[in-house]
């Protein structure tokens, strides 16, 4: 599978970036959940940082259209690529890269921090959505199955929950309590905050895919209404991360807010 993937990347490199590149994600108002919204925003931010235009299209069956089963995915020319990692490689094959100026040690650090975000923040988001009974019943299951009619909505929602719980079991998170998960999120944010320090971006002056990923997750956590505000509070306690999110939002999303309402992220300024 990886050999085919590499070959398709090399053939794609010859074509320039088309006008009609599209990013697919689940329905924004009713269906999308915290973790998917974070991943989608990370990809959108990365594409904006590269200066590549993309249209965001919301479909109820985005998850099933995706080649790997995960959202978001982009449709460029006749290529379909999903998830931030492969998308970064695909765009690098097209000649756009944000991390070319980094040396080997810095690249190792960048990859390590991206894995930290995936390992801690994304897993914590999935845990809170699907393994916490109250959140799963009040928010996740109704939202995930909202486009479907009975009995499909029940079946799909429980199936997804069971899948996520199996994964949590396999990596050893099923024994954790909610407080421990919040504590892990807090430690992860502390590590990111210490790494960021007073710099504008993680690798000083230039944004990289790590900045896009961190922004995607933190912004979504700050602006999504869950059953309680504890997760957002954990992130808010780190002021340099808050100002980092403000900075990226104003730099890359300001003009889009004025153009259209649908598909644009909510501004942090509106949230008290």
């Amino acid at each position, binding site marked *: *599978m990886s050999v085919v993937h590499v070959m398709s990347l090399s053939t794609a490199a010859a074509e320039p970036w088309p006008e009609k590149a599209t990013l697919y994600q689940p329905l924004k108002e009713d269906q999308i959940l915290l973790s998917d919204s974070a991943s989608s925003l990370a990809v959108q931010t990365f594409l904006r940082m590269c200066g590549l235009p993309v249209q965001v299209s919301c479909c109820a069956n985005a998850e099933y259209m995706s080649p790997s089963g995960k959202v978001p995915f982009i449709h460029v020319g006749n290529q379909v690529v999903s998830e931030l990692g492969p998308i970064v490689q695909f765009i690098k094959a097209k000649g756009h890269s944000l991390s070319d100026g980094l040396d080997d*040690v810095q690249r190792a650090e960048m990859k*390590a921090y991206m*894995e930290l975000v995936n390992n801690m923040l994304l897993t914590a988001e999935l845990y809170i959505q699907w393994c916490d009974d109250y959140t799963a019943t009040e928010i996740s299951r109704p939202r995930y199955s909202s486009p479907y009619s009975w009995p499909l909505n029940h079946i799909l929602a429980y199936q997804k929950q069971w899948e996520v719980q199996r994964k949590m079991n396999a990596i050893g998170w099923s024994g954790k309590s909610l407080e421990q998960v919040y504590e892990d999120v807090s430690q992860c944010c502390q590590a990111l905050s210490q790494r960021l320090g007073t710099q504008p971006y993680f690798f000083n002056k230039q944004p990289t895919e790590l900045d896009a990923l961190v922004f995607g997750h933190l912004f979504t956590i700050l602006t999504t209404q869950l059953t309680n505000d504890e997760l957002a509070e954990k992130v808010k306690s780190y002021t340099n991360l808050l100002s980092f999110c403000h900075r990226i939002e104003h730099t890359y999303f300001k003009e889009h807010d004025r153009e259209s309402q649908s598909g644009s992220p909510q501004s942090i300024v509106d949230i008290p």
Partner: protein
Amino acid sequence: MYFNKHLLWVKVLSWRCALGCCCMHTNMAEPMELLCWGGDWDLPSVHSDSLIVLAYAKFSGAKLAVKSIDWTWRTITASVPQLHYEGSTVTEPAQILNFLRKQRFNADYELTAKQGADTMAYIALLEEKLRPALLHTFWVDAENYVNLTRPWFTSHSPFPLNFFVPGRQASLALSRILLTKAESPLLNITEVEGKIYSEAKECLNLLSHRLGNFHFFFGDTPTSLDAFVFGHIAPLIKAPLPSGQLQKHLNQLDNLCQFCNTILKNYFTDASAEKRMDCSLMATHDPVDANLQKLTQLVNKESNLIEKMDDNLRSSPQHRHETKPSARASERNSPLLSKH
């Protein structure tokens, strides 16, 4: 006086209840007890997570009473590694390291805040990128599993558990790989293999870049990150794997091999002596199981001989030749490096 005696009695009682009838000493500050898998192939333990805890204990100066779970029923009941202290039990390497830090055995004392953050990030990198490939190499790859892993764990488990322990570990490893790396339910293990091995090789390269020419990842003293890296790569370097593409890749990264050998030489040279003492202590305290152990060993001896003959035929002579010169090279280089 009465209060002190009372305290001592309460401590002894609670400690006895926690540990059962194993230990005989009754000193005031009882040592922390660690349960882990036994050692082989020049390593104090063949299990990655146990190695992490053992290495960290050596780095931070914590005195652990290491008890091997080989040939006991704990091979199937206990989740290893497990730390017992004053009635409380801690599992999982990260939590055990946290616990040791709270007991003031802290090897990360001199790290800056940024280095602490880097530690967390690199540990996440190891868990995400390297661990699936390690699990695959030892437990899912058919040749390695049948020729090395399964015979080793079978010969170190008591009858009748030797039929169940390796199979259970293998199925846990496979399910973990499939659930975390195979993103769609349609993919099976062969399609995921290529991806996890390429990610693992990339991870090893990144670690090698980060280590550079230094002894340890953060200067001259080892920290928890060194323990984690050591725990993951030491079995891969030392195990005589019949088919090890990841091992071949790792052997080309000289600084990581030297890192591993340095730690073994400086911190674990008397490990084999300690292990023999532990085994003899266990034998005197479990007279009932001694006969059973002897019978099991006799039964397994024949199959072990056959396995060993196969291993000698299969394992490449280059692998043995490579390890010897690198050990000599590290001895030659260490007086040069110590000048820095």
